């Protein structure tokens, strides 16, 4: 590993006091970071902590609201990623930016084509690629078609692509998230050979073991702020987990003891595949009783989305069964499940939760426009719809000029309140909520949390899925950690510690040894 310590450390990248806000959320708040020559600097934090926002600014994809970025001591203002590339910054995104039907060589030269007259000079490109590959131990076949390569090989192509553009500051956004354990070890070898030859690396991850294995220095982000820096020698998984999830409770939700009743929602050996056909829920068993909130914690991408969609009928199951209210509801249609009394606050607000061009009133009846109250003999009763909307807008404190306002004109928090208002009213017996407060302001978060607890106290069974550990801890009565599509462990919320959950989330076991 490179010499991070000692007087020879020369900063190649200095980020000073960066602030970046998006509507409704401050993604980065006065963040500073220094990357030294030949160093591996890990950026650690939970989902939503602001890691990607930060590196996207360094790579010229976003512009900071405040603060400066210096490359090799010189202040820079990137207009786009082209400017960043010109300064020797390369980025490997979490989702590869490759064209599957092109060859490795074609992908690497894309946008930076080596030409001879009007023709591509693939021979010379191939030679350059081979020499880069040899120098850094990145075995790639320039003539292979990218679509036929494994994920690990595709990642090497991305690295060569960045090196081909003379990058010496490399940003790797969750590079190991998609790799198998064996590939991860190979990858670490490559990373060390890169820094050995003078490249500097920003490595984004939320996997503690990896941080300790490769990092020279570590910066921990939480809710957009730097909450700590450490060296690999001085840190332990435990200390990093503490920093990452934080000790301060942001929201103390007042709630009484749960009084759980009969089981309402149960899954047995549930298996579900994602859009690519990969099974991401791999045998999930849970039982949620009336009057309790069962929180599902976990790093995103461990099957949460597919689990929720399968339970609510939006996605076919690949195996196992779902029971709700004493009936087997496996692969029922969303309409049938809704009519049974199961409400669903979807994870993706704009894709599933609302029709952006519709009014607030129409969005409030999106799943019950056909009920007799709102439609007689196939004709919509606009008066009844508006009256209902008016009532819900008041009851749920939606800040809007009127129920006939197009919902897209509202802030994210108010849109979410509309969804919550729609889902949490009526005769519901079970509630499935996914990321209910993502990107919302403090007031909306508290409001939504209170509503969920109210429902629990009325005897509704609540399945809560959230990437926010705080939210899980403050709302849940029992907590299960989802790791690679199954429950890694279930704990009573009263006994749960952040440390234990953090380890379960990151490693799938409370010893943290996996």
């Amino acid at each position, binding site marked *: 590993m490179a010499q991070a310590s000692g007087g020879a450390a020369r900063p190649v990248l200095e980020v000073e006091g960066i602030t970046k806000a998006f509507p409704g959320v401050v993604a980065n708040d006065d963040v500073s970071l220094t990357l030294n020559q030949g160093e591996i600097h890990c950026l650690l934090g939970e989902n939503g902590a602001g890691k990607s926002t930060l590196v996207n600014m360094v790579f010229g994809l976003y512009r900071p609201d405040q603060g400066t970025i210096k490359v090799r001591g010189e202040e820079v203002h990137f207009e786009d990623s082209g400017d960043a590339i010109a300064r020797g910054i390369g980025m490997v995104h979490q989702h590869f930016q490759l064209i599957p039907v092109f060859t490795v060589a074609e992908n690497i030269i894309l946008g930076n084509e080596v030409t001879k007259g009007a023709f591509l000079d693939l021979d010379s490109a191939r030679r350059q690629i081979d020499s880069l590959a040899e120098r850094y131990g990145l075995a790639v076949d320039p003539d292979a078609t990218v679509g036929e390569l494994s994920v690990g090989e595709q990642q090497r192509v991305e690295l060569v692509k960045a090196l081909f553009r003379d990058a010496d500051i490399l940003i790797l956004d969750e590079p190991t998230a998609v790799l198998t354990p064996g590939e991860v070890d190979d990858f670490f070898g490559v990373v060390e050979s890169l820094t050995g030859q003078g490249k500097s690396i920003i490595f984004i991850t939320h996997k503690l073991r990896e941080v300790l294995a490769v990092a020279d220095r570590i910066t921990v982000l939480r809710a957009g702020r730097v909450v700590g820096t450490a060296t690999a020698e001085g840190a332990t998984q435990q200390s990093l987990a503490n920093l990452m999830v934080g000790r301060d409770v942001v929201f103390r939700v007042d709630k009484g003891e749960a009084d759980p009743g009969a089981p309402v929602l149960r899954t047995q050996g549930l298996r579900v595949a994602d859009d690519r056909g990969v099974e991401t829920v791999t045998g999930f068993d849970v039982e949620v009783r009336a009057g309790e909130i069962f929180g599902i914690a976990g790093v995103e991408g461990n099957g949460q989305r597919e689990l929720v969609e399968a339970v609510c009928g939006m996605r076919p199951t690949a195996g196992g069964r779902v029971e709700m209210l004493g009936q087997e509801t496996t692969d029922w249609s969303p309409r049938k499940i809704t009519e049974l009394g199961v409400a669903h606050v979807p994870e993706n607000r704009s894709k599933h939760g609302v029709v952006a061009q519709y009014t607030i009133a129409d969005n409030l009846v999106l799943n019950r426009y*056909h009920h007799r109250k709102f439609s007689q003999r196939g004709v919509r009763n606009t008066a009844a719809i508006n009256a209902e909307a008016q009532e819900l807008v008041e009851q749920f404190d939606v800040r809007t000029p009127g129920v006939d306002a197009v919902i897209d004109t509202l802030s994210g928090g108010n849109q979410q309140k509309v969804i919550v208002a729609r889902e949490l009213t009526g005769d519901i017996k079970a509630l499935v909520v996914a990321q209910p407060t*993502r990107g919302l302001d403090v007031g909306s978060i508290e409001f939504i949390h209170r509503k969920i607890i109210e429902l629990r106290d009325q005897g509704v069974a609540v399945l809560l899925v959230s990437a926010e550990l705080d939210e899980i801890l403050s709302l849940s009565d029992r907590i299960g950690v989802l790791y690679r599509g199954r429950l890694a462990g279930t704990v009573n919320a009263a006994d749960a510690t952040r440390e234990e959950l953090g380890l379960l989330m990151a490693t799938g076991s409370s010893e943290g040894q996996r």
Partner: protein
Amino acid sequence: MNGARNANAGIGRAAGQVHRVLTEAWRLQPLYVSLYAILLSFVVGGVLISIIGVNPFTAYWALLRGMVGGGDEIAGSLARSVPFIGSALALAFAFRAGLFNIGAEGQLLAGGVTAAYVGALSWMSDLPGIVAIPLILIAGTMGGAIWGGIPGVLRTKTGAHEVISTIMLNSLVLFGVRWMVNSRDPVVLRDTESTVPRTDPISDTAVLPELVDSQPVLHTGLFALVGICFVVAFVLKRTTFGFEVGTVGLNPHASHYAGINVNRVIVASMAASGAFAGLAAASEISGTNGFFQPGTFFLMGFDGIAIALLARTNPVAIIAAALLWGSMLSGAPLMQQEADVSIDVVRIIQAMVLLFVAADAIVRYLFRVRELDQSPFKATSVEGAV
């Protein structure tokens, strides 16, 4: 050098202003842009006519008189416009469900041939008109609905895109009916006593009553098609089914989440679209032709696309757009006769109308991409990827 760059920047800014003005106009008054497109097309058409050496005002005056210069002209223009209403609705309805039905051409043929077949059945002459006429119209409507429904089914079952499948079905039905009507051995639908290839004449009882003996004949099919426009407007605006169609069109994911049967809506919308084309064809068979000839409906479906886009898929505006379209075609011969300007000039003007309407959509599309780049897009990435 510098001046040129400044001029370029100036033009760019001016174009940006125009885009913004257009975009605003679009949002506030959707049909304003269509009127603007029509005006612009006539201006460019006028330039074209003067290049040929004719005074454009003379030509347009003749065209106008050909369109609405007298009772017969008005009736003829109306008659010419009636079927366009149906073929435009065929695009517009599916469009509301997020589908691009460019199969009206084929759906007209399927509806027309079914109507002609049913209308010529021997027992039709035993029925009173009050039964026979609805029967022939229903038959045509069903024929169109089935031909329109097939791409809907293909879309939901196999994922085949309706643009591709409707084009294919257009060819299939075109050559299919051509063969059925032409063939003498075996005789399928050909009227063997006729020297031109056409089907047997329909029963007299199945003929829609005539309103004006104009060229072409103005018949009571006018009421059916205008009425349908208002029905469609009501369905889309006020009914539960219309709400489902609009929801699927705007956000199929949210529709699925909200419990709407998206596949059922897609098939029903495509079938309804085909039904409107089928009805238009049946009313022509019954009210104008009295038999089926494939050439009757040539380009009528594609004109329907232009009309529907001109009317911004608003069913009531379609009536006006179809009237404009039909009367321009109906008035063109007088322009040719009096000002010696080819009928094709009207076709060119119509093509330009569509071009300007479509080009405006392209501008809007480009503009939206730029807009997305500013904040909303990045706001979404915050949710997804921070």
